[in-house]
């Protein structure tokens, strides 16, 4: 029998990390902190290098012999191509302003999750290989050799960053850590070092048009279920169209909303809203994914996956594109799509057929976010709303990183929210708007095997929700992001039980009085409406 430690021995366990500096301390792979490695078939399908069976915790990563050369060349290419990358490699003065701003650092207490140090993982190699001082002085000039341990450290920590950019808000130089992580992941992908939670959706999306690999009949089938539920709640049977040529608007949303709660309630919200407006729109079973996990892989892969959206808009002959509620989708579409796959000169500048509002902000890319679209409808009194139907909810608002911090969409969702609910409570100032805390699961890290990482990364967000839950009775966390809807549910269950998660358009649809609807007794989730619940209580 093995020797059992005595209580006194246990209490003396040393928790100190090794006394060697970070550069010389190899990373230890801890369960719950990383995702499964990419499968060969996922890489093969899109022509990515080095497809093979491998496990991140194994010593042998089955790398090509010249792996180091590939990475160094990869860095050189990117230094030439991206001035931002070159700048970010040189300008950090290590002031530390970013250090405690990262949700992963806060939750893990691991210094390598300080944004400055995460960037330093690459910078140290950059200095050694690309600067004169580093070539001559090595470690004295902050340079270090690229070794297998360094590569493993990159993989571990670049898949512990959600590219949320909170740190960049506080950086006096505006260094965008997201771009450094993006490049870090690109370099790792040159050796086939992706995670399956990203690589799988990428190959699915490439073949079938969406991350989940839903085929056309499955998409239609899933929506049919929602239509049944809508009929139960409202008495109205909605008949959306798919792949309809000549529709005025193409609607593109993250596929996550098509198959898992609570995203499905948001999708039901879209269906009901568009029906009520009599919108001339169509769903596409090909451009069936607004999100883009290619963006978490490489710039080229992001571009390849994105190309279907304009292509489908052209094929169907629509005038403009409306986008569903999603976070990174919106950043990709707004900041990348036009340069990747534009110009979309075959489309028209989006104009709401209901209010006549021209969306000048979308003049070039020709796509409007549904929160902007609905805010405009409400501003022009085009919807009949009864916010009291949401009176059983006390809602707080999670600003999704890419939409809020990335795109500045702060007011539109709040305007819509305040119009459809009577009880809205903001979370504390340091945790919302530009300073919003990430859900901890973005950029393809919303797998289940890294649950501990997600719970730690999401802790600062959950802590703020807990505050409004305990002090103001908040019981619902609203957002406009599919990854949030998928991942915050678990986060709330762990940290703040009693708080649900919903999309904006679920609340819109609950409050919206539809023409010819039956008297509603439940919300979209089948929960009794407050008025009905009150009556039942009396009886």
């Amino acid at each position, binding site marked *: 029998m093995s020797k059992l430690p005595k*209580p006194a021995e*246990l*209490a003396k*366990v040393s*928790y*100190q*990390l090794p006394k060697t500096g970070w550069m010389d301390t190899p990373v230890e792979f*801890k369960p*719950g*902190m990383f995702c499964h490695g990419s499968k060969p078939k996922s890489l093969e399908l899109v022509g990515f290098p080095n497809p093979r069976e491998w496990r991140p915790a194994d010593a042998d990563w089955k790398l090509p012999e010249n792996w180091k050369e590939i990475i160094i060349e990869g860095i050189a290419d990117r230094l030439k191509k991206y001035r931002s990358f070159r700048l970010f490699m040189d300008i950090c003065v290590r002031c530390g302003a970013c*250090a*405690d*701003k990262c949700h992963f*650092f*806060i*939750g*893990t*207490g*691991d*210094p390598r999750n*300080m944004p400055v140090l995460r960037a330093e993982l690459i910078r140290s190699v950059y200095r050694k290989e690309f600067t004169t001082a580093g070539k001559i002085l090595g470690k004295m000039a902050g340079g270090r050799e690229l070794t297998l341990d360094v590569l493993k450290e990159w993989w571990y920590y670049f898949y512990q960053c959600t590219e949320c950019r909170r740190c960049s808000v506080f950086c006096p130089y505006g260094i965008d850590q997201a771009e450094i992580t993006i490049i870090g992941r690109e370099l790792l992908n040159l050796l086939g070092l992706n995670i399956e939670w990203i690589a799988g959706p990428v190959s699915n999306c490439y073949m079938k048009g969406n991350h989940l690999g839903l085929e056309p009949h*499955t998409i239609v*089938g*899933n929506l049919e*279920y929602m239509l049944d539920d809508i009929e139960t709640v409202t008495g109205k049977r909605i008949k959306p169209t798919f792949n309809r040529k000549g529709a005025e608007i193409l609607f593109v949303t993250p596929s996550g909303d098509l*198959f*898992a*709660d609570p995203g*499905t309630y948001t999708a039901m919200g879209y269906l009901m809203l568009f029906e009520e407006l009599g919108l001339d729109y169509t769903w596409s079973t090909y451009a069936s994914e607004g999100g883009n996990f290619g963006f978490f892989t490489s710039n080229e892969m992001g571009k390849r996956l994105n190309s279907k959206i304009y292509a489908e808009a052209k094929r169907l002959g629509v005038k403009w594109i409306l986008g569903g509620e999603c976070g990174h989708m919106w950043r990709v579409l707004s900041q990348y799509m036009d340069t990747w796959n534009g110009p979309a000169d075959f489309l028209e500048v989006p104009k709401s057929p209901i209010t006549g509002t021209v969306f000048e902000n979308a003049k070039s890319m020709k796509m409007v976010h549904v929160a902007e679209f609905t805010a405009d409808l409400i501003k022009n009194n085009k919807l009949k709303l009864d916010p009291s139907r949401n009176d059983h909810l006390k809602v707080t608002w999670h600003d999704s990183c890419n939409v809020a911090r990335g795109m500045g969409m702060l007011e539109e969702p709040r305007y819509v929210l305040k119009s459809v609910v009577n009880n809205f409570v903001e979370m*504390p100032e*340091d*945790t919302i708007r530009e300073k919003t805390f990430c859900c901890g699961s973005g950029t393809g890290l919303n797998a*289940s*095997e890294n*649950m*501990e990482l997600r*719970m*730690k990364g999401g*802790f*600062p967000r959950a*802590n*703020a929700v807990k*505050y409004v839950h305990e002090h103001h009775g908040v019981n619902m966390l609203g957002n406009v992001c599919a990854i949030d809807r998928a991942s915050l*549910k*678990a986060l709330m*269950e*762990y*940290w703040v039980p009693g708080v649900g998660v919903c999309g904006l358009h679920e609340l819109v649809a609950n409050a919206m009085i539809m023409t010819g609807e039956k008297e509603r007794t439940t919300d979209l989730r089948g929960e009794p409406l407050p008025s009905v619940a009150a009556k039942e209580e009396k009886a």
Partner: protein
Amino acid sequence: MDLKEILRQKREDIVDRWFEAILSSYHEDARGPMRRTQAQFTNPVGFNFREGLEGLFDAVLQGMLPDTVTGFLDAIVRLRAVQDFSPSQSLSFIFELKKILRAAAGAELSGDPETADELVRLDGVIDDLALFAFDLHMECREKIYALKAQEARDMTFRLLQKAQLIAEHQE
């Protein structure tokens, strides 16, 4: 003056030491930010640890009630249950209090048999606290595994429904 009164007067100092003891389980570069204990929302770890330890200290002196102690314990144990600690490492901070209380009582009451009895009694309370913490730690770990299973179920629910493999409960 009785021991509890002396410890109460040294509350700030005792909680400081206890807080430092728990911080010593983190990397030294992480401790600085954690010490900003007023920043409830931007430094939730330091804030929750400090508030939790204060509450636990008071509870130990007052004789604990499970209802009052759970919230304070939760503020610390829930986070440490998902951090990179073994269960013994995660909860060993509780036993640190025994040493800290002895050190605090030390000079003034050394050799006093009543104090010694009282310290042994407090040791028992701290042991009870450790047992509560162990339950909570296990609950947190079980929740993590339940969440993993739940996510797998959520992802496949519609597919199972579509394949008519889910029976609806009929009222």
